[in-house]
Protein backbone atom coordinates (compact mmCIF):
# COMPACT_ATOMS: atom_id res chain seq x y z
CA UNK A 1 0.00 0.00 0.00
CA UNK A 2 2.72 2.39 1.02
CA UNK A 3 4.81 1.54 -2.02
CA UNK A 4 1.96 2.29 -4.41
CA UNK A 5 1.38 5.78 -2.97
CA UNK A 6 5.13 6.34 -3.14
CA UNK A 7 5.09 5.34 -6.77
CA UNK A 8 2.12 7.58 -7.50
CA UNK A 9 4.01 10.49 -6.02
CA UNK A 10 7.17 9.63 -7.96
CA UNK A 11 5.22 9.24 -11.19
CA UNK A 12 3.49 12.58 -10.71
CA UNK A 13 6.79 14.30 -9.96
CA UNK A 14 8.29 12.96 -13.18
CA UNK A 15 5.34 13.99 -15.31
CA UNK A 16 5.01 17.37 -13.56
CA UNK A 17 6.61 19.32 -16.46
CA UNK A 18 3.77 18.10 -18.65
CA UNK A 19 1.11 18.81 -16.02
CA UNK A 20 2.37 22.37 -15.50
CA UNK A 21 2.75 23.03 -19.24
CA UNK A 22 -0.66 21.51 -19.92
CA UNK A 23 -2.39 23.67 -17.33
CA UNK A 24 -0.68 26.96 -18.22
CA UNK A 25 -0.30 26.68 -21.99
CA UNK A 26 -3.34 24.59 -22.92
CA UNK A 27 -6.09 24.27 -20.31
CA UNK A 28 -6.03 27.89 -19.19
CA UNK A 29 -5.98 29.34 -22.74
CA UNK A 30 -8.86 27.06 -23.80
CA UNK A 31 -10.83 28.12 -20.73
CA UNK A 32 -10.03 31.76 -21.62
CA UNK A 33 -11.06 31.24 -25.24
CA UNK A 34 -14.44 29.98 -24.08
CA UNK A 35 -14.74 32.79 -21.54
CA UNK A 36 -13.78 35.55 -24.01
CA UNK A 37 -16.19 34.12 -26.55
CA UNK A 38 -19.04 35.33 -24.31
CA UNK A 39 -17.45 38.74 -23.87
CA UNK A 40 -16.52 41.87 -25.67
CA UNK A 41 -12.79 42.20 -25.07
CA UNK A 42 -10.19 44.42 -26.76
CA UNK A 43 -7.20 43.49 -24.52
CA UNK A 44 -6.84 47.09 -23.29
CA UNK A 45 -10.10 47.23 -21.31
CA UNK A 46 -11.51 44.50 -19.07
CA UNK A 47 -13.84 41.99 -20.77
CA UNK A 48 -17.58 42.80 -20.73
CA UNK A 49 -20.01 39.87 -20.65
CA UNK A 50 -22.34 39.92 -23.68
CA UNK A 51 -23.71 36.37 -23.67
CA UNK A 52 -24.12 34.63 -27.01
CA UNK A 53 -23.78 37.78 -29.13
CA UNK A 54 -20.40 36.85 -30.64
CA UNK A 55 -21.78 33.52 -31.83
CA UNK A 56 -24.93 35.13 -33.17
CA UNK A 57 -22.92 37.75 -35.01
CA UNK A 58 -20.65 35.12 -36.55
CA UNK A 59 -23.53 33.60 -38.43
CA UNK A 60 -24.48 36.97 -39.89
CA UNK A 61 -20.90 37.79 -40.80
CA UNK A 62 -20.39 37.32 -44.54
CA UNK A 63 -16.60 37.34 -44.21
CA UNK A 64 -16.80 34.54 -41.65
CA UNK A 65 -19.18 32.48 -43.77
CA UNK A 66 -17.04 33.02 -46.82
CA UNK A 67 -13.92 31.96 -44.89
CA UNK A 68 -15.63 28.70 -43.97
CA UNK A 69 -16.54 28.05 -47.59
CA UNK A 70 -13.01 28.84 -48.86
CA UNK A 71 -11.45 26.66 -46.18
CA UNK A 72 -13.79 23.81 -47.11
CA UNK A 73 -12.96 24.19 -50.81
CA UNK A 74 -9.26 24.20 -50.02
CA UNK A 75 -9.55 21.09 -47.82
CA UNK A 76 -11.66 19.19 -50.34
CA UNK A 77 -9.09 19.91 -53.05
CA UNK A 78 -5.95 19.37 -51.00
CA UNK A 79 -6.77 16.17 -49.10
CA UNK A 80 -7.55 13.74 -51.95
CA UNK A 81 -4.83 15.17 -54.17
CA UNK A 82 -2.08 15.01 -51.57
CA UNK A 83 -3.15 11.54 -50.44
CA UNK A 84 -3.16 10.18 -53.99
CA UNK A 85 0.18 11.77 -54.87
CA UNK A 86 1.95 10.63 -51.71
CA UNK A 87 0.53 7.11 -51.80
CA UNK A 88 1.25 6.76 -55.51
CA UNK A 89 4.91 7.74 -55.18
CA UNK A 90 5.32 5.75 -51.97
CA UNK A 91 4.16 2.59 -53.77
CA UNK A 92 6.55 3.25 -56.66
CA UNK A 93 9.43 4.04 -54.32
CA UNK A 94 8.79 0.86 -52.38
CA UNK A 95 9.70 -1.32 -55.35
CA UNK A 96 13.19 -2.65 -55.82
CA UNK A 97 14.39 -0.24 -58.46
CA UNK A 98 17.68 1.26 -59.51
CA UNK A 99 18.54 4.51 -57.72
CA UNK A 100 15.85 4.10 -55.08
CA UNK A 101 17.78 5.97 -52.37
CA UNK A 102 18.39 8.97 -54.62
CA UNK A 103 14.73 9.09 -55.67
CA UNK A 104 13.57 8.89 -52.06
CA UNK A 105 15.86 11.78 -51.09
CA UNK A 106 14.63 13.93 -53.99
CA UNK A 107 10.97 13.40 -53.10
CA UNK A 108 11.64 14.06 -49.45
CA UNK A 109 13.80 17.20 -49.72
CA UNK A 110 11.03 19.75 -50.47
CA UNK A 111 9.23 18.83 -47.24
CA UNK A 112 12.23 20.22 -45.34
CA UNK A 113 11.88 23.69 -46.86
CA UNK A 114 10.59 26.15 -44.23
CA UNK A 115 7.06 27.39 -44.89
CA UNK A 116 8.18 30.97 -45.51
CA UNK A 117 10.82 30.05 -48.08
CA UNK A 118 8.39 27.62 -49.69
CA UNK A 119 5.67 30.25 -50.00
CA UNK A 120 8.00 32.92 -51.39
CA UNK A 121 9.56 30.49 -53.87
CA UNK A 122 6.19 29.40 -55.22
CA UNK A 123 4.92 32.96 -55.28
CA UNK A 124 7.83 33.65 -57.62
CA UNK A 125 7.12 30.59 -59.77
CA UNK A 126 3.38 31.39 -59.98
CA UNK A 127 4.09 35.00 -60.91
CA UNK A 128 1.67 35.88 -63.70
CA UNK A 129 4.12 37.98 -65.71
CA UNK A 130 7.58 36.52 -65.20
CA UNK A 131 6.81 33.23 -63.49
CA UNK A 132 8.58 30.15 -64.78
CA UNK A 133 5.39 28.10 -64.59
CA UNK A 134 3.59 30.12 -67.22
CA UNK A 135 6.71 30.09 -69.37
CA UNK A 136 6.80 26.28 -69.26
CA UNK A 137 3.07 26.13 -70.02
CA UNK A 138 3.72 28.50 -72.92
CA UNK A 139 6.15 25.99 -74.40
CA UNK A 140 3.20 23.63 -74.72
CA UNK A 141 1.08 26.37 -76.25
CA UNK A 142 -0.92 26.96 -73.08
CA UNK A 143 -1.34 30.51 -71.93
CA UNK A 144 -1.29 30.24 -68.15
CA UNK A 145 -3.57 32.27 -65.86
CA UNK A 146 -2.42 34.91 -63.44
CA UNK A 147 -2.40 32.19 -60.79
CA UNK A 148 -2.39 34.08 -57.51
CA UNK A 149 -4.27 37.06 -58.89
CA UNK A 150 -7.27 35.06 -60.06
CA UNK A 151 -10.15 34.07 -57.79
CA UNK A 152 -10.42 30.82 -59.72
CA UNK A 153 -6.76 29.76 -59.57
CA UNK A 154 -5.51 31.16 -56.26
CA UNK A 155 -6.76 28.23 -54.13
CA UNK A 156 -5.53 25.55 -56.58
CA UNK A 157 -2.14 27.32 -56.56
CA UNK A 158 -1.94 27.08 -52.79
CA UNK A 159 -3.00 23.43 -52.96
CA UNK A 160 -0.25 22.72 -55.48
CA UNK A 161 2.31 24.44 -53.27
CA UNK A 162 1.29 22.10 -50.46
CA UNK A 163 1.58 19.03 -52.71
CA UNK A 164 5.24 19.85 -53.18
CA UNK A 165 5.80 19.15 -49.48
CA UNK A 166 4.20 15.68 -49.27
CA UNK A 167 7.60 14.05 -48.64
CA UNK A 168 6.77 13.50 -44.98
CA UNK A 169 3.69 11.41 -45.74
CA UNK A 170 5.60 9.50 -48.43
CA UNK A 171 8.09 8.44 -45.74
CA UNK A 172 5.27 7.41 -43.39
CA UNK A 173 3.64 5.35 -46.15
CA UNK A 174 6.97 3.77 -47.07
CA UNK A 175 7.45 2.61 -43.48
CA UNK A 176 3.98 1.08 -43.52
CA UNK A 177 4.47 -0.55 -46.93
CA UNK A 178 7.52 -2.42 -45.65
CA UNK A 179 5.32 -4.27 -43.19
CA UNK A 180 3.01 -5.67 -45.85
CA UNK A 181 3.96 -9.36 -46.22
CA UNK A 182 5.47 -10.12 -49.63
CA UNK A 183 3.72 -13.47 -49.68
CA UNK A 184 0.37 -11.71 -50.19
CA UNK A 185 1.60 -10.09 -53.41
CA UNK A 186 3.15 -13.32 -54.63
CA UNK A 187 -0.08 -15.20 -54.03
CA UNK A 188 -2.05 -12.52 -55.87
CA UNK A 189 0.38 -12.59 -58.76
CA UNK A 190 -0.02 -16.34 -59.12
CA UNK A 191 -3.76 -15.78 -59.22
CA UNK A 192 -3.15 -13.37 -62.08
CA UNK A 193 -3.95 -10.10 -60.31
CA UNK A 194 -2.45 -7.07 -62.08
CA UNK A 195 -0.74 -4.07 -60.50
CA UNK A 196 -3.90 -2.07 -59.96
CA UNK A 197 -5.80 -4.96 -58.40
CA UNK A 198 -2.92 -5.71 -56.06
CA UNK A 199 -2.79 -2.08 -54.90
CA UNK A 200 -6.54 -1.93 -54.52
CA UNK A 201 -7.03 -5.24 -52.67
CA UNK A 202 -3.75 -5.76 -50.81
CA UNK A 203 -1.74 -2.56 -50.36
CA UNK A 204 -4.53 -0.17 -49.44
CA UNK A 205 -6.32 -2.47 -46.96
CA UNK A 206 -3.03 -3.51 -45.34
CA UNK A 207 -1.86 0.05 -44.70
CA UNK A 208 -5.33 1.46 -43.98
CA UNK A 209 -4.49 2.49 -40.37
CA UNK A 210 -1.70 4.71 -41.67
CA UNK A 211 -3.92 6.12 -44.41
CA UNK A 212 -6.50 6.95 -41.74
CA UNK A 213 -3.81 8.60 -39.60
CA UNK A 214 -2.59 10.72 -42.52
CA UNK A 215 -6.17 11.60 -43.43
CA UNK A 216 -7.03 12.89 -39.94
CA UNK A 217 -3.78 14.82 -39.61
CA UNK A 218 -4.25 16.17 -43.14
CA UNK A 219 -7.75 17.45 -42.43
CA UNK A 220 -6.71 19.04 -39.13
CA UNK A 221 -3.77 20.67 -40.94
CA UNK A 222 -5.94 21.99 -43.77
CA UNK A 223 -8.45 23.55 -41.38
CA UNK A 224 -5.58 25.51 -39.81
CA UNK A 225 -3.83 26.53 -43.04
CA UNK A 226 -2.25 29.92 -42.49
CA UNK A 227 1.38 30.65 -43.35
CA UNK A 228 1.36 29.81 -47.06
CA UNK A 229 -1.76 31.80 -48.05
CA UNK A 230 -0.80 34.62 -45.65
CA UNK A 231 2.52 35.02 -47.46
CA UNK A 232 1.47 34.18 -51.01
CA UNK A 233 -1.85 36.02 -51.36
CA UNK A 234 -2.56 37.70 -48.02
CA UNK A 235 -6.06 36.24 -48.42
CA UNK A 236 -6.75 37.75 -51.82
CA UNK A 237 -7.96 38.15 -54.47
CA UNK A 238 -11.47 39.10 -53.33
CA UNK A 239 -10.89 37.06 -50.12
CA UNK A 240 -10.87 33.83 -52.15
CA UNK A 241 -7.94 32.55 -50.06
CA UNK A 242 -8.94 34.23 -46.83
CA UNK A 243 -9.16 31.03 -44.80
CA UNK A 244 -10.56 30.43 -41.33
CA UNK A 245 -7.36 30.85 -39.34
CA UNK A 246 -6.47 34.04 -41.20
CA UNK A 247 -9.75 35.66 -40.22
CA UNK A 248 -9.30 34.38 -36.66
CA UNK A 249 -5.80 35.89 -36.62
CA UNK A 250 -7.04 39.24 -37.92
CA UNK A 251 -9.90 39.40 -35.43
CA UNK A 252 -7.54 38.73 -32.54
CA UNK A 253 -4.51 40.78 -33.53
CA UNK A 254 -5.52 43.30 -36.22
CA UNK A 255 -9.00 44.27 -35.01
CA UNK A 256 -8.36 43.38 -31.33
CA UNK A 257 -11.73 41.63 -31.13
CA UNK A 258 -10.60 38.93 -28.70
CA UNK A 259 -14.14 37.91 -27.86
CA UNK A 260 -15.07 37.40 -31.49
CA UNK A 261 -11.77 35.55 -32.08
CA UNK A 262 -12.55 33.44 -29.01
CA UNK A 263 -15.89 32.40 -30.50
CA UNK A 264 -14.11 31.48 -33.75
CA UNK A 265 -11.51 29.48 -31.80
CA UNK A 266 -14.19 27.56 -29.91
CA UNK A 267 -16.03 26.81 -33.15
CA UNK A 268 -12.81 25.68 -34.86
CA UNK A 269 -12.14 23.29 -32.02
CA UNK A 270 -15.68 21.89 -32.21
CA UNK A 271 -15.40 21.53 -36.00
CA UNK A 272 -12.09 19.66 -35.70
CA UNK A 273 -13.37 17.28 -33.03
CA UNK A 274 -16.60 16.70 -34.98
CA UNK A 275 -14.79 15.99 -38.25
CA UNK A 276 -12.38 13.63 -36.49
CA UNK A 277 -15.26 11.69 -34.95
CA UNK A 278 -17.21 11.56 -38.23
CA UNK A 279 -14.16 10.46 -40.21
CA UNK A 280 -13.39 7.80 -37.61
CA UNK A 281 -16.95 6.48 -37.75
CA UNK A 282 -17.06 6.50 -41.55
CA UNK A 283 -13.73 4.74 -41.97
CA UNK A 284 -13.94 2.38 -38.97
CA UNK A 285 -15.28 -0.59 -40.93
CA UNK A 286 -12.69 -0.08 -43.67
CA UNK A 287 -9.61 -0.06 -41.50
CA UNK A 288 -7.75 -3.29 -41.06
CA UNK A 289 -5.77 -3.77 -37.85
CA UNK A 290 -3.45 -6.74 -37.91
CA UNK A 291 -3.46 -8.71 -34.68
CA UNK A 292 -0.29 -8.01 -32.81
Amino acid at each position, binding site marked *: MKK*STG*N*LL*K*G*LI*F*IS*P*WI*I*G*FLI*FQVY*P*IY*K*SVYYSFCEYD*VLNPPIFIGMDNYKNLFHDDIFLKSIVSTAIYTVMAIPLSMIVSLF*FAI*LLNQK*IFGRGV*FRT*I*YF*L*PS*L*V*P*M*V*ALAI*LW*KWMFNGE*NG*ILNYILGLFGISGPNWLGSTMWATPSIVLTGIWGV*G*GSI*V*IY*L*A*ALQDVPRSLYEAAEIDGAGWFLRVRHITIPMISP*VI*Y*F*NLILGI*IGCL*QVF*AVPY*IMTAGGPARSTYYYTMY*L*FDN*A*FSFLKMGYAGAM*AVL*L*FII*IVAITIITTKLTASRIYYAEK
Partner: protein
Amino acid sequence: MRKNNLVKHKSHKKQRLLSSVAVHTVLIIGAIAFLFPLVWMLSTSLKPLPETTKIPPTIIPSKFMWSNYAHATTAIPFWKYAKNTLIVCVLSVIGTLISSTLVAYGFSRIQWKGRNAVFYCVLATMMIPFPVIMAPLFVVFGKLGWIGTLKPLWIPSFGAAAFNIFLLRQFFRTIPTELTEAARIDGCSELGILLRIVLPLSKPVLLVVALFQFIASWNDFLGPLVYLTRENTYTLALGLQFFQSQHGGTFWNYLMAASSLIVLPIIVIYFFAQKAFIEGISLTGLKG
Protein backbone atom coordinates in the same frame (compact mmCIF):
# COMPACT_ATOMS: atom_id res chain seq x y z
CA MET B 1 5.09 -28.50 -72.95
CA ARG B 2 8.58 -27.36 -72.00
CA LYS B 3 8.71 -24.98 -74.92
CA ASN B 4 5.44 -23.51 -73.81
CA ASN B 5 6.84 -22.81 -70.36
CA LEU B 6 9.91 -21.19 -71.83
CA VAL B 7 7.84 -18.83 -73.95
CA LYS B 8 5.76 -17.98 -70.94
CA HIS B 9 8.90 -17.31 -68.92
CA LYS B 10 10.29 -15.07 -71.64
CA SER B 11 7.15 -13.00 -71.96
CA HIS B 12 7.05 -12.70 -68.19
CA LYS B 13 10.60 -11.37 -68.20
CA LYS B 14 9.73 -8.91 -70.94
CA GLN B 15 6.76 -7.72 -68.96
CA ARG B 16 8.96 -7.20 -65.91
CA LEU B 17 11.38 -5.12 -67.94
CA LEU B 18 8.56 -3.06 -69.41
CA SER B 19 7.05 -2.33 -66.02
CA SER B 20 10.47 -1.38 -64.65
CA VAL B 21 10.95 1.08 -67.50
CA ALA B 22 7.48 2.52 -66.88
CA VAL B 23 8.15 2.91 -63.14
CA HIS B 24 11.44 4.64 -63.81
CA THR B 25 9.92 7.01 -66.34
CA VAL B 26 7.19 8.07 -63.92
CA LEU B 27 9.68 8.44 -61.07
CA ILE B 28 12.07 10.52 -63.16
CA ILE B 29 9.29 12.88 -64.30
CA GLY B 30 8.13 13.18 -60.69
CA ALA B 31 11.69 13.74 -59.48
CA ILE B 32 12.17 16.58 -61.98
CA ALA B 33 8.95 18.18 -60.77
CA PHE B 34 9.98 17.85 -57.11
CA LEU B 35 13.54 19.01 -57.63
CA PHE B 36 12.95 21.81 -60.11
CA PRO B 37 11.63 24.44 -57.66
CA LEU B 38 14.79 24.07 -55.56
CA VAL B 39 16.97 24.38 -58.66
CA TRP B 40 14.98 27.41 -59.73
CA MET B 41 15.45 29.00 -56.32
CA LEU B 42 19.22 28.56 -56.47
CA SER B 43 19.33 29.68 -60.10
CA THR B 44 17.36 32.88 -59.44
CA SER B 45 19.41 33.59 -56.33
CA LEU B 46 22.58 33.81 -58.42
CA LYS B 47 21.29 35.94 -61.29
CA PRO B 48 21.78 39.65 -61.88
CA LEU B 49 18.40 41.39 -61.40
CA PRO B 50 17.57 41.98 -65.12
CA GLU B 51 18.20 38.33 -65.91
CA THR B 52 15.53 37.16 -63.43
CA THR B 53 12.78 38.30 -65.80
CA LYS B 54 14.55 37.47 -69.07
CA ILE B 55 12.68 35.52 -71.75
CA PRO B 56 13.60 32.77 -72.49
CA PRO B 57 14.64 32.11 -68.89
CA THR B 58 18.08 30.73 -68.14
CA ILE B 59 18.67 27.89 -65.70
CA ILE B 60 22.39 28.56 -65.39
CA PRO B 61 22.98 32.25 -64.72
CA SER B 62 25.06 34.07 -67.34
CA LYS B 63 27.11 35.45 -64.48
CA PHE B 64 27.24 34.00 -60.98
CA MET B 65 26.30 36.90 -58.73
CA TRP B 66 27.57 35.62 -55.39
CA SER B 67 27.22 39.18 -54.19
CA ASN B 68 23.43 38.61 -54.13
CA TYR B 69 23.98 36.58 -51.01
CA ALA B 70 26.05 39.31 -49.39
CA HIS B 71 23.33 41.77 -50.35
CA ALA B 72 20.56 39.56 -48.99
CA THR B 73 22.28 39.41 -45.60
CA THR B 74 22.55 43.19 -45.39
CA ALA B 75 19.16 44.13 -46.90
CA ILE B 76 17.63 42.62 -43.77
CA PRO B 77 19.63 42.36 -40.54
CA PHE B 78 20.15 38.71 -41.42
CA TRP B 79 22.70 37.79 -38.77
CA LYS B 80 20.70 39.43 -36.02
CA TYR B 81 17.62 37.42 -37.05
CA ALA B 82 19.78 34.31 -37.37
CA LYS B 83 21.02 34.82 -33.83
CA ASN B 84 17.45 35.21 -32.50
CA THR B 85 16.38 32.10 -34.39
CA LEU B 86 19.29 30.10 -33.01
CA ILE B 87 18.56 31.25 -29.46
CA VAL B 88 14.97 30.03 -29.80
CA CYS B 89 16.05 26.77 -31.46
CA VAL B 90 18.74 25.88 -28.91
CA LEU B 91 16.69 26.79 -25.83
CA SER B 92 13.66 24.90 -27.20
CA VAL B 93 15.77 21.82 -27.84
CA ILE B 94 17.16 21.96 -24.29
CA GLY B 95 13.68 22.46 -22.84
CA THR B 96 12.21 19.67 -24.91
CA LEU B 97 14.95 17.18 -24.03
CA ILE B 98 14.79 17.86 -20.30
CA SER B 99 11.01 17.89 -19.98
CA SER B 100 10.09 15.09 -22.34
CA THR B 101 12.66 12.61 -21.01
CA LEU B 102 11.41 13.18 -17.45
CA VAL B 103 7.77 12.84 -18.46
CA ALA B 104 8.34 9.83 -20.72
CA TYR B 105 10.22 8.13 -17.87
CA GLY B 106 7.25 8.75 -15.59
CA PHE B 107 4.96 7.17 -18.17
CA SER B 108 7.12 4.13 -18.92
CA ARG B 109 9.35 3.13 -16.00
CA ILE B 110 7.31 3.92 -12.92
CA GLN B 111 4.11 2.00 -12.18
CA TRP B 112 1.43 4.22 -10.75
CA LYS B 113 -2.31 4.20 -10.52
CA GLY B 114 -4.08 5.97 -13.38
CA ARG B 115 -0.95 6.11 -15.54
CA ASN B 116 -2.62 4.92 -18.71
CA ALA B 117 -5.63 7.18 -18.30
CA VAL B 118 -3.36 10.21 -17.92
CA PHE B 119 -1.32 9.09 -20.91
CA TYR B 120 -4.45 9.08 -23.07
CA CYS B 121 -4.99 12.64 -21.89
CA VAL B 122 -1.50 13.48 -23.14
CA LEU B 123 -2.25 11.96 -26.54
CA ALA B 124 -5.56 13.81 -26.72
CA THR B 125 -3.76 17.15 -26.37
CA MET B 126 -2.31 16.56 -29.81
CA MET B 127 -5.79 17.43 -31.06
CA ILE B 128 -5.57 21.00 -29.74
CA PRO B 129 -4.67 23.23 -32.68
CA PHE B 130 -2.45 26.24 -32.05
CA PRO B 131 -4.90 28.73 -33.64
CA VAL B 132 -7.46 27.81 -30.99
CA ILE B 133 -5.22 28.93 -28.13
CA MET B 134 -2.97 31.55 -29.72
CA ALA B 135 -5.10 34.57 -28.83
CA PRO B 136 -5.63 33.81 -25.12
CA LEU B 137 -1.97 32.74 -24.93
CA PHE B 138 -1.09 36.21 -26.14
CA VAL B 139 -2.99 37.63 -23.17
CA VAL B 140 -1.26 35.18 -20.79
CA PHE B 141 2.19 36.03 -22.17
CA GLY B 142 1.31 39.71 -22.00
CA LYS B 143 0.51 39.43 -18.29
CA LEU B 144 3.82 37.63 -17.76
CA GLY B 145 5.59 40.48 -19.58
CA TRP B 146 6.92 38.16 -22.30
CA ILE B 147 5.40 39.85 -25.35
CA GLY B 148 8.13 41.43 -27.44
CA THR B 149 10.72 38.99 -26.08
CA LEU B 150 11.70 35.55 -27.37
CA LYS B 151 10.33 33.84 -24.24
CA PRO B 152 6.90 32.80 -25.65
CA LEU B 153 8.73 30.80 -28.30
CA TRP B 154 10.93 28.69 -26.05
CA ILE B 155 9.69 28.61 -22.45
CA PRO B 156 6.62 26.46 -23.35
CA SER B 157 9.02 23.75 -24.60
CA PHE B 158 9.89 23.08 -20.95
CA GLY B 159 6.32 21.81 -20.62
CA ALA B 160 6.87 18.65 -22.73
CA ALA B 161 4.86 18.30 -25.95
CA ALA B 162 2.69 15.22 -26.38
CA PHE B 163 4.37 13.95 -29.53
CA ASN B 164 7.84 13.90 -27.97
CA ILE B 165 6.53 12.19 -24.85
CA PHE B 166 4.95 9.56 -27.07
CA LEU B 167 8.10 8.98 -29.08
CA LEU B 168 10.38 8.68 -26.03
CA ARG B 169 7.94 6.51 -24.10
CA GLN B 170 7.77 4.07 -27.02
CA PHE B 171 11.54 3.82 -26.93
CA PHE B 172 11.96 3.63 -23.15
CA ARG B 173 9.56 0.69 -23.05
CA THR B 174 11.92 -1.35 -25.20
CA ILE B 175 14.72 -1.10 -22.60
CA PRO B 176 14.77 -4.38 -20.59
CA THR B 177 13.27 -3.98 -17.11
CA GLU B 178 16.05 -6.18 -15.66
CA LEU B 179 18.49 -3.34 -16.23
CA THR B 180 16.47 -0.74 -14.35
CA GLU B 181 15.32 -3.20 -11.65
CA ALA B 182 18.93 -4.17 -10.90
CA ALA B 183 19.88 -0.53 -10.46
CA ARG B 184 16.85 0.02 -8.25
CA ILE B 185 17.87 -2.88 -6.00
CA ASP B 186 21.36 -1.39 -5.81
CA GLY B 187 19.71 1.67 -4.32
CA CYS B 188 19.87 3.91 -7.35
CA SER B 189 17.29 6.73 -7.34
CA GLU B 190 14.80 7.06 -10.18
CA LEU B 191 16.57 10.13 -11.50
CA GLY B 192 19.86 8.22 -11.33
CA ILE B 193 18.35 5.34 -13.33
CA LEU B 194 17.10 7.79 -15.95
CA LEU B 195 20.43 9.59 -16.24
CA ARG B 196 22.82 6.62 -15.96
CA ILE B 197 20.95 3.78 -17.61
CA VAL B 198 17.99 4.89 -19.71
CA LEU B 199 19.41 8.00 -21.40
CA PRO B 200 22.73 6.49 -22.54
CA LEU B 201 20.73 3.73 -24.25
CA SER B 202 18.36 6.19 -25.89
CA LYS B 203 20.75 8.33 -27.90
CA PRO B 204 19.15 7.64 -31.31
CA VAL B 205 15.65 8.66 -30.25
CA LEU B 206 16.97 11.68 -28.32
CA LEU B 207 18.63 12.79 -31.54
CA VAL B 208 15.32 12.46 -33.38
CA VAL B 209 13.45 14.51 -30.76
CA ALA B 210 16.18 17.18 -30.71
CA LEU B 211 16.29 17.41 -34.52
CA PHE B 212 12.53 17.68 -34.91
CA GLN B 213 12.30 20.37 -32.25
CA PHE B 214 15.17 22.31 -33.81
CA ILE B 215 13.53 22.24 -37.22
CA ALA B 216 10.08 23.06 -35.85
CA SER B 217 11.50 26.13 -34.12
CA TRP B 218 13.57 27.09 -37.17
CA ASN B 219 10.53 26.87 -39.47
CA ASP B 220 7.90 28.29 -37.14
CA PHE B 221 6.10 31.26 -38.65
CA LEU B 222 2.79 31.80 -36.87
CA GLY B 223 4.32 31.79 -33.37
CA PRO B 224 6.87 34.54 -34.11
CA LEU B 225 4.25 36.49 -36.10
CA VAL B 226 1.93 36.57 -33.10
CA TYR B 227 4.37 37.06 -30.23
CA LEU B 228 7.37 38.96 -31.62
CA THR B 229 6.15 42.52 -31.71
CA ARG B 230 9.56 44.18 -31.74
CA GLU B 231 11.69 44.15 -34.88
CA ASN B 232 14.93 43.43 -33.05
CA THR B 233 13.57 40.11 -31.78
CA TYR B 234 12.46 38.86 -35.23
CA THR B 235 13.42 35.36 -36.29
CA LEU B 236 14.60 34.58 -39.82
CA ALA B 237 11.21 33.30 -40.97
CA LEU B 238 9.48 36.46 -39.80
CA GLY B 239 12.22 38.78 -41.06
CA LEU B 240 12.13 37.22 -44.51
CA GLN B 241 8.36 37.59 -44.76
CA PHE B 242 8.64 41.19 -43.59
CA PHE B 243 11.21 41.95 -46.28
CA GLN B 244 9.11 40.14 -48.84
CA SER B 245 5.98 42.10 -48.03
CA GLN B 246 7.94 45.38 -48.26
CA HIS B 247 9.92 44.70 -51.42
CA GLY B 248 8.12 41.66 -52.87
CA GLY B 249 7.68 41.40 -56.59
CA THR B 250 10.92 43.15 -57.48
CA PHE B 251 14.16 41.81 -56.02
CA TRP B 252 13.48 38.15 -56.68
CA ASN B 253 17.19 37.36 -56.80
CA TYR B 254 17.78 38.71 -53.28
CA LEU B 255 14.63 37.05 -52.01
CA MET B 256 15.72 33.73 -53.43
CA ALA B 257 19.20 34.18 -51.96
CA ALA B 258 17.76 34.84 -48.52
CA SER B 259 15.36 31.89 -48.91
CA SER B 260 18.24 29.62 -49.90
CA LEU B 261 20.13 30.70 -46.80
CA ILE B 262 17.15 29.69 -44.62
CA VAL B 263 16.76 26.34 -46.38
CA LEU B 264 20.45 25.47 -46.41
CA PRO B 265 21.03 24.70 -42.70
CA ILE B 266 18.05 22.32 -42.67
CA ILE B 267 19.29 20.46 -45.76
CA VAL B 268 22.79 20.21 -44.28
CA ILE B 269 21.37 18.81 -41.03
CA TYR B 270 19.31 16.36 -43.06
CA PHE B 271 22.31 14.97 -44.91
CA PHE B 272 24.22 14.52 -41.65
CA ALA B 273 21.37 12.80 -39.85
CA GLN B 274 19.43 11.21 -42.69
CA LYS B 275 18.82 7.96 -40.85
CA ALA B 276 17.49 9.64 -37.72
CA PHE B 277 15.13 11.73 -39.84
CA ILE B 278 13.62 8.89 -41.77
CA GLU B 279 13.26 6.71 -38.67
CA GLY B 280 11.70 9.55 -36.73
CA ILE B 281 9.12 10.31 -39.39
CA SER B 282 8.37 6.63 -39.86
CA LEU B 283 7.67 6.42 -36.13
CA THR B 284 5.07 9.18 -36.39
CA GLY B 285 2.96 6.77 -38.42
CA LEU B 286 3.06 4.24 -35.60
CA LYS B 287 0.20 5.87 -33.80
CA GLY B 288 -2.10 4.99 -36.67
